[in-house]
């Protein structure tokens, strides 16, 4: 009875002491956040970026959003014709494109349903605000995120690359 009693307790002490020595010699597993930062993976869903030129205000994203955090307003405008003498074109002009990140649950459905490649995921994550109302990003702010959007990652071997856009 006494014999197996010793190792169990001492093994536990050994594990903690081993970790103590490992942390002291090899460094910890944590990082000191504001001083050093981890790079999130390319696919990380950090913030949604808007390429305004591609948006036709078709409202697909706003409708498919599970918690209705996308607000779109737009109007039709007459643009000068492409060729001289042609009829003026009707274009959809985006007045308002807001995403309320206080509501957003980062499911990514809007990015997926967008038929014109106007929405992208960016792995940026540092946009917390002291006021909750400031989490409503308007289209200029969403447009600024475009700079941070990375290229899509290479796929693993054996992937069917043709099928993807």
């Amino acid at each position, binding site marked *: 009875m006494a014999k197996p009693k010793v190792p169990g307790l001492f093994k536990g002490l050994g594990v903690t002491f081993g970790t103590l020595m490992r942390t002291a010699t090899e460094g910890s597993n944590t990082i000191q956040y504001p001083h050093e930062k981890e790079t999130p*993976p390319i696919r*990380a869903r950090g913030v949604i970026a808007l390429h305004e030129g591609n948006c036709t205000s078709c409202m697909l994203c706003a409708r498919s959003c599970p918690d209705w955090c996308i607000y779109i307003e737009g109007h039709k405008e007459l643009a000068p014709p492409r060729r001289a003498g042609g009829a003026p074109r009707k274009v959809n002009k985006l007045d308002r494109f807001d995403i309320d990140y206080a509501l957003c649950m980062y499911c990514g459905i809007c990015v997926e349903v967008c038929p014109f490649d106007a929405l992208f995921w960016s792995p940026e994550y540092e946009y917390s605000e002291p006021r909750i109302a400031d989490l409503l990003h308007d289209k200029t702010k969403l447009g600024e995120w475009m700079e941070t959007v990375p290229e899509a990652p290479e796929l693993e071997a*054996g992937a069917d690359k043709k099928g993807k856009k």
Partner: protein
Amino acid sequence: MTMLGDRQQLAYIAAQAADARVNVELETEGMTLNIGPQHPATHGTLRIIARLDGEQVVWAEPSAGYMHRGYEKLTEVRTYPQVTALVNRIDWLGSFANEVPFILAAEKLMGVEAPARAQHIRTILFELSRIANVSLFLGDLGVQLGAVTPVFFAFRDREYVLNLIEAATGGRFHPNFDRIGGLKDDLPAGFIDETRMVMKKLRTFCDQIEDLLFGNEIFQSRTRGIGVIPKDVALQYGLSGANLRASGVDWDLRRDQDLPMAWNKADWKVWTHPDGDSFARCWVRLQEVRESTKIVDQLLDTIPAGPVMAKVPKIIKVPEGEAWVSTENPLGEMGYYVVSQGDQGPFRVKIRSASFNNISIVPWVLKGVYVPDIITILASLYFILGDIDR
């Protein structure tokens, strides 16, 4: 096995009788202790009303519903892709595993089957989310029993798994990666090598936890013979998952069910334990993490080439019908009964979540135990509040 349960009950009755005599003389009265809704042992907002006599529990009942979010009703007004995003949040520690049975049920109704590559990757991610879930259990177990260190080990090594899931799906906690007919995207390059390394780390983590916690005599004296659930009682209360296997029932839906997933392509073992006590439940889970790392390792070798998405229309309308699919989730059997009337969203979804059934045994198993054992038993039953209240 029945004997153990009876013995527990008899001991309790005897103790009650003895106490009753003492209490009449001393004119003491019992005490009602509300454990929760805000109590560290309840992982959230479960409330357990316990009637105590001294430190012994006379009667206990869980009171769930403090975090009810109405998922079954919400699904009726959401489309299928939106429901996938929602059901992520049921068991928030192993979220990918929540999507799979729902998607499988919808696929069953539509009559499509995901390509072999998608099935493989689904299974890998499913097991990764199992590891993410159960490894946190192993750490949390320590905290419930008073050891502070294991939980940090758990968070340390679970982080690697979450990073993997994030690299593949984009979401650390809520992947929303499963689609009807396959997956949203293929794996990113480098995922396989990274996963292999992480699986090695996870196995070391399991060894560490075994040395630190499971081998510890104090831990064993706290868990062995505590909260014994005999086989027949476990079956009567509808326990599932590791709780059932710890009672000696050899039952695992991954093996026993023919689903379009890749579990049958790997060689692994279903662990059971004959004792049915708290230690057995914890030990079975520890072994499960080890098995999961083995499954992932084997499946990584054999991912077939090909597409990850079957041909499905862009706007999904599921034909009329009803389908039930359940899988062996980290917490136990999780199933969706999907009723479709041909719309873009389901007409009705019944969610069978494991934790709700698992805690229904609490009034039975808590009778006659001491207050510290309440915590041990609750920890070993392992529930996630989101999974109970939905």
